[in-house]
């Protein structure tokens, strides 16, 4: 099985989707001839034609709006927004139309579009190129929010997102685009889009993370293992709808939970997970739930980035804190 990076796995999934379904089209700024700002669509316009892999003007609102209209009439658009900070003009169309078409039409019209955007920090880019805005989107009923954390999951989840009948925001941790290589089979197999993934099993603490934070949490779990502390590591993968069951059953087993995300603390998705555990797993909890997150600050310029981003050391500190509690 060939080894590949996340960006290659994404390209492979896009190519597979274009090949198997003539209704799949890709558009966005520079996705055609240039192959995308991170080269996710490199070579696709040459292979599938400019009518299917189409460069657009710099018009995020209309890119999203056109995608909704085209999806309502039976196409499966996969639109790319170059960075999460450029997504705001498209929010009007996502929140007011894409997410509600099914509800407004009693399910007679649906909006099977995917909006891909690289997200998160770690590549020394300025604020609007590095932010994590997943909670903002996960707050919108009717939208799915999916984030892969490895090449194989990027391939399987992106195929699932494209085949899904509902609108999906697919955030790609750009820090991982070329950081990991693993075997990915181009077998057209989608992964379940509503399931969290239990990446490693332990007994003492549950680590919940997604995107690039999986790498940090995994590193922390390795170090904990050396100290005799074993962790469940859950990759949420689908942030909305949220697979609450997988998180609850893990915490019922371990009694401790540390949630890790790059996004700022306040009203981040960690708050929702912590509240859910407090409501449903109170009697299993041995220690307070801890969150290791970005701060309630502007995403810093690159010299300060390392101080902002959660890392294995901060995760370890939080785990020791909950372990010491009980």
């Amino acid at each position, binding site marked *: 099985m060939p080894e590949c990076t996340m960006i290659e796995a994404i390209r492979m999934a896009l190519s597979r989707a274009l090949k198997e379904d003539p209704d799949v089209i890709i558009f966005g700024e520079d996705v055609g001839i240039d192959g995308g700002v991170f080269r996710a669509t490199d070579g696709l316009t040459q292979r599938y034609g400019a009518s299917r892999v189409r460069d657009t*003007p710099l018009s995020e609102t209309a890119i999203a709006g056109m995608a909704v209209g085209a*999806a309502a009439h039976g*196409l499966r658009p996969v639109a790319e927004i170059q960075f999460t900070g450029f997504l705001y003009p498209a929010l009007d169309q996502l929140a007011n139309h894409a997410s509600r078409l099914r509800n407004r039409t009693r399910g007679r019209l649906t909006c099977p579009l995917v909006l891909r955007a690289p997200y998160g920090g770690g590549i020394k880019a300025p604020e609007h190129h590095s932010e994590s805005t997943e909670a903002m989107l996960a707050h919108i009923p009717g939208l799915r929010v999916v984030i892969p954390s490895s090449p194989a999951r990027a391939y399987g989840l992106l195929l699932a997102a494209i085949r899904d009948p509902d609108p999906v925001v697919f955030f790609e941790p750009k820090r991982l685009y070329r950081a990991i290589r693993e075997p990915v089979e181009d077998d057209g197999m989608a992964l379940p889009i509503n399931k969290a993934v239990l990446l490693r099993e332990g007994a003492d603490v549950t680590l919940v993370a997604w995107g690039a934070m999986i790498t940090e949490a995994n590193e922390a779990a390795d170090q904990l293992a050396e100290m005799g502390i074993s962790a469940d590591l859950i990759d949420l993968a689908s942030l909305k709808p949220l697979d609450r069951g997988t998180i609850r059953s893990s915490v019922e087993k371990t009694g401790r939970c540390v949630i890790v995300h790059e996004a700022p603390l306040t009203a981040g998705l960690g708050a929702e997970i912590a509240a859910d555990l407090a409501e449903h797993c109170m009697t299993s909890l041995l220690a307070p739930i801890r969150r290791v997150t970005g701060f309630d600050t502007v995403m810093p310029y690159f010299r300060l980035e390392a101080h902002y981003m959660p890392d294995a050391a901060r995760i370890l500190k939080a785990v020791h804190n909950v372990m010491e509690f009980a």
Partner: protein
Amino acid sequence: MATRKSTKKTNVSADELKLYYREMLLIRRFEEKAGQLYGMGVIGGFCHLYIGQEAVVVGLEANSKEGDKRITSYRDHGHMLACGMDPNGVMAELAGRFDGYSAGKGGSMHMFSEEKNFYGGNGIVAAQVPLGTGLAFADKYKGSDNVTFAYFGDGAANQGQVYEAFNMAALWNLPVIYVIENNQYAMGTSQQRSTSTRDIYTRGEAFGIPGEIVDGMDVLAVRDAGEKAIKHCRSGKGPYILEIKTYRYRGHSMSDPAKYRTREEVQKVREERDPIEHVRGLLLANKYATEDDLKAIDKEIKGIVNESAEFARNSPEPDPAELWTDIYAEATA
């Protein structure tokens, strides 16, 4: 503007003219009934009436064909009736009832019919313009010769996304007719106070999109302009703009202080330029219909509208469980 004389017309048959009369009257009586039901509390939410603008949709629908699409903003009841949607389903939706087009979950601004290719009913001003452009994109991609009517108002014409859409439609030759229903007021702000351009359609020139001004109080003028625009789009020449000068008799919504224009102004349009009276005059002057014929049409329309009100009142409210339906493909409750 001088009082319009109802003169003889040669480019329209008696049947066509009677059809336009009937359809415009249906919209007007339906809207009057909706206004009444709103006052009685049967209809909630907001309610934006189309009275005065009837010739726009009826004129444009005259040349549409199977598979053509339409999408508009929140003043949408007329568009739905003109494309053949069921008055019962529309009225029930206004009343928030289960038998409405959106099961009582969409309301006045959010109804759809895949059968009639009506894509809403959209509450966000101008957001329907890129959506309509996307519909046209899909038609072109699929190789059909259908066109999309993307309706918006003079107020929406000042939103940036309209011009993002114009650019893409022109760039890719999309079969979309942008219909600017210029009723001269963006809620309470007149065009003069809000818009730098006197003729809004001229903004299309910057994108190479042809367009023209149409008298929206004359259904035949609208029909003829529509025919030309449709022909342009269907033959693959790309988008077209119709700026249709029309007039809204009622307030922006049901609560409108109406400080932005005088009663006299409204009265004058009603008396001198009413689109329904215009056709009525033509029918009589050309002896296409007698007073008795028209009375019979009035009576029939009254029956349809009363039935829609009855239907709405008798339809059940949505079950509370409906809160949780149609959020995602699978149940999430």
